[in-house]
């Protein structure tokens, strides 16, 4: 007869000295871990509440400009350098590690309309109201740092500039879209479609020959550098201010529009917006994508910044401060962590992209706990209590009342349309999806009409 009674050696289960860590034994048998689902729910609830507690996104304010900041540009090779241009013609170079201005250049005698950085990171180009294009060096310590490397005086006013992502080519937009070469002082190619002025231009980071511009006649025009005429255009109901390309999907771009929305388009299908992002209370002035291609940030005339997911139509986050006035320009840093906003009250603000994230190096246990909490929040995101807490944001009273009014207006318009449909012959009032509602038409450029000779 063999008998064995369970007996444990306490030395195996207790630590030897105070300096040791405690011994941990695990047994994953579900009988020892009852109430898995309710406990996970309570942990998710706690994690959501703590996220709201730790949501402190504002990091720093960069002071120095003496007029509103109207354009910004990221350095393409370094994470800590930003160039900003203000409405009094000054361009400042900032280092974000020390949050200081390392160079202030009196660049133009009017607004600085656009700044763009060359892909190799050695030079940046600015364009201003004094009809000049100026090339500068990005190195703040060289002897040439106070004077432009090159100045080109142009005949017409340019309102935007962007650099090709690979070649030494840049494009400016004003009356027309001009393609320049770095060494030339005359545009190499000119694209023109219609007579209205072009507001902004943006090159595609992936499909590098493509660029898109926004025109004052409410259209968004696509260009391909390999052809001599614009490719096609889509006309919306109101004018778009800025367009940003998705850095991960070559064919998607998002346009920031005056009608308080942002429209994401697929270039293969311009007659139907891929997504309509609503949540702003006033015209959207700037948009920039995160390097992951999953989210973008938009700054608007209603003194707030919103972060939207690419495949959702409502914002996941809103940043605002009493001191921040109209936001003219926003940028998402290339390490996916920070958001910069330049606004009317001469400040550039540095924000966290994820408001409750702990910055800096996390210990492995901290990281594991943070990962676990994030996963739990995602798992229980649709439970009403958790959704209510995670969605809750404080928003300034003006924005709150505007959004409330817009909701009432939208509901009543919908009701009226339903009534009209109910009282008309079936089929006379068709259902128009939201994504097609804001698009007037699309058009393709005809070869014969209105072509300017391309200059060699």
């Amino acid at each position, binding site marked *: 007869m063999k008998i064995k009674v369970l*007996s444990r050696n306490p030395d195996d289960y207790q630590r030897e000295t105070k300096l040791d860590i405690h011994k941990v034994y*695990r047994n994953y048998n579900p009988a*020892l871990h009852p109430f898995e689902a309710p406990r996970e729910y309570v942990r998710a609830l706690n994690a959501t509440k703590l996220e709201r507690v730790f949501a402190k996104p504002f990091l720093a304010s960069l002071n120095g400009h003496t007029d509103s900041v109207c354009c910004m540009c990221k350095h393409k090779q370094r994470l800590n350098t930003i160039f900003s241009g203000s409405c009094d013609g000054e361009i400042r170079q900032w280092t974000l590690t020390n949050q200081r201005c390392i160079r202030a250049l009196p660049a133009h005698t009017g607004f600085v309309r656009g700044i763009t950085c060359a892909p190799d990171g050695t030079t940046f180009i600015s364009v201003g109201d004094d009809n000049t294009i100026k090339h500068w060096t990005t190195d703040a310590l060289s002897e040439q740092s106070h004077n432009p490397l090159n100045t080109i005086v142009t005949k017409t006013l340019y309102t935007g500039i962007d650099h090709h992502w690979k070649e030494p080519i840049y494009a400016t937009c004003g009356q027309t879209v001009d393609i320049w070469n770095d060494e030339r002082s005359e545009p190499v190619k000119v694209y023109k479609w219609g007579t209205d002025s072009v507001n902004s231009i943006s090159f595609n980071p992936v499909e590098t020959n493509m660029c898109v511009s926004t025109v004052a006649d409410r259209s968004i025009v696509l260009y391909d550098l390999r052809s001599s005429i614009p490719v096609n255009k889509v006309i919306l109901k109101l004018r778009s201010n800025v367009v940003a390309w998705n850095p991960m999907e070559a064919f998607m771009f998002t346009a920031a529009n005056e009608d308080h929305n942002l429209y994401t388009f697929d270039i293969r299908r311009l007659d139907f917006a891929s997504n309509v992002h609503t949540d702003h209370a006033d015209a959207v002035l700037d948009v920039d994508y995160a390097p992951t291609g999953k989210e973008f940030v938009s700054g608007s005339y209603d003194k707030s910044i919103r972060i939207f997911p690419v495949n959702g139509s409502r914002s996941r986050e809103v940043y605002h401060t009493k001191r921040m006035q109209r936001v003219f320009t926003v940028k998402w840093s290339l390490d996916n962590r920070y958001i910069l906003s330049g606004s009317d009250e001469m400040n550039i603000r540095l924000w966290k992209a994820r408001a409750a994230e702990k910055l800096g190096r996390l210990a492995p246990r901290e990281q594991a706990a943070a990962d676990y909490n994030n996963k739990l929040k995602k798992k229980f995101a649709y439970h009403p209590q958790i959704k209510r807490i995670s969605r809750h944001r404080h928003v300034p009273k003006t924005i709150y009342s505007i959004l409330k009014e817009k909701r009432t207006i939208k509901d009543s318009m919908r009701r009226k349309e339903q009534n009209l449909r109910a009282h008309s012959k079936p089929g006379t009032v068709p259902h128009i999806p939201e994504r097609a509602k804001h698009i007037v038409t699309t058009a393709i450029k005809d070869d014969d009409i209105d072509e300017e000779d391309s200059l060699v």
Partner: protein
Amino acid sequence: MAGRYYEKRKLSSEIKKNEDEDGLSVSEVAQPEDPFKGSAPIPEERKSLYKRGKEFPVDGIKNKKLKGFLRNTKKHDKAAVNQAARYELLLTEEPGYIETAEGEATWEIKQREIADAADITSASKYFELRLDQFGPYSVDYTRNGRHLLIGGRRGHVAAFDWMAKKPMCEMNVMEAVNDVKWLHTENMFAVAQRRWTYIYDNQGIELHCLKRLDQTLKLDFLPYHFLLLAANARGFLQYLDISQGQIVSTINTKCGRLEVLCQNPANAVVLLGHYNGTVTMWSPNQKKPLVKMLSHKTALRSIAVDQTGNYLATSAQDRKLKIFDVRTFKSLHTWSVPAGASHLKFSQRGFLGASFQNVVEIYNNPCIQPPTNPYLTHKLKFPASDLDFCPYEDVLGVGCADGFVSLLVPGAGEPNYDSFESNPYRSKKQRKEWEVRALLEKIQPDMISLDPFQIARVDMATAEQLQKDKEERLGFKQESPKFEPRFKKKGRSKSGNVEKRKRKVRNEELRKKIRSEAEKNNANEAAESQMEANVITKPLEPKSALNRFKKKTK
């Protein structure tokens, strides 16, 4: 340059090569040919222990993104199940056992023989405390099996660390003691005294006198909800939240004296046994029982639910012991016993301890098949007054009229504990950390229901109802007029209270709608099934005793 945009994305075939079927990465160093290629196979029964719920069919989904996401989740689930199953290799301890030779029977083995055959530490776990002055003793072990609390009917209450034989407190409360129970740690315990229930510190200092829990006969503690249960002589069942000190709910069960009480550890539902042989299940959220089950035809003497929450053992005056499946309420086994078992208790590994007058019998696998013989028996001098298995040890504590005896039951305790759940070897600091974490994860009492996993499931009924509401709203049908609650004075109409009242009405209306929808569905289904059946019933013939001689017509 803009190099990041040109990074070549890994082909899925390349990625698969570096992972084995468990989803773990495999090194690429050149190795000699492996005769047993791939990972070791895991037996299905081991894997089934760690699976949660049924597999969701992914093929029928049309949305490509959702399909991809679900497929990925399934892969992760499988990897998790495999890893958990493999982890069993790392468990250090083995359960106890008795291996008998041919002709020997385990129930003939005496405790003294087991103590002699086992090692010295185990032998010290078999001891007897002769306390014949203060009446039959109630027994309770803490959740980690370290500390023991005994309460004699004539007022003697003692708490001690039974393994180290270190006393913590010993006192006489000068009143009749009906039941004793440890609270969440070994720092506090509750004693159900003649009139009221008291909470004491582990030094014996009286912390609280709970006058609302009067005439309590049985106490129980829900560890994950921090709820103390008190079943009283007048038929009231009360839940007290010990972290907040408030009574969560008082239920008038209207079933008479509540002497038979047991909790289902898997879903925190309380089972009561009554005079008419019914077992009722209660939750603090409802005034009526969740389930009423007729288990025996005579008065119930005791009930017990096993650790996994699958089986219910009941014993009544009709001298039968029945095992039920708690979820389907079906009777699984029945066997005869010499008398109604006065106390029943399940151990962590499924052993059932039963006391019949002064004999304690332990059955080792009563739920799988009805036992022909007990596993172990022990004869006491006086009838047993309480039974409790010690968690994580092979020990059964029995309180009787002349004291307390601790019996060795090889194989009863779970050999491998989980440090994050309950750790018998925890230090003071570990206990404090554990307590704070447990309080943070305290489950609210309104989540107690028969199915604890309900919260992680999709609520199809409410989802459908809300969808219908949305469609109605978009199509703008006439909605019911908005409920405006009446203005109450004395500050009772604060915005928070008003919102609470509005929410109650809204939820009630939603529930009504769901119920009516469900009834409609049932009516439809019944109508359909009737149509399908379409049986032509024969007219009933008058019954007579000679019917069996009539020729049967096909």
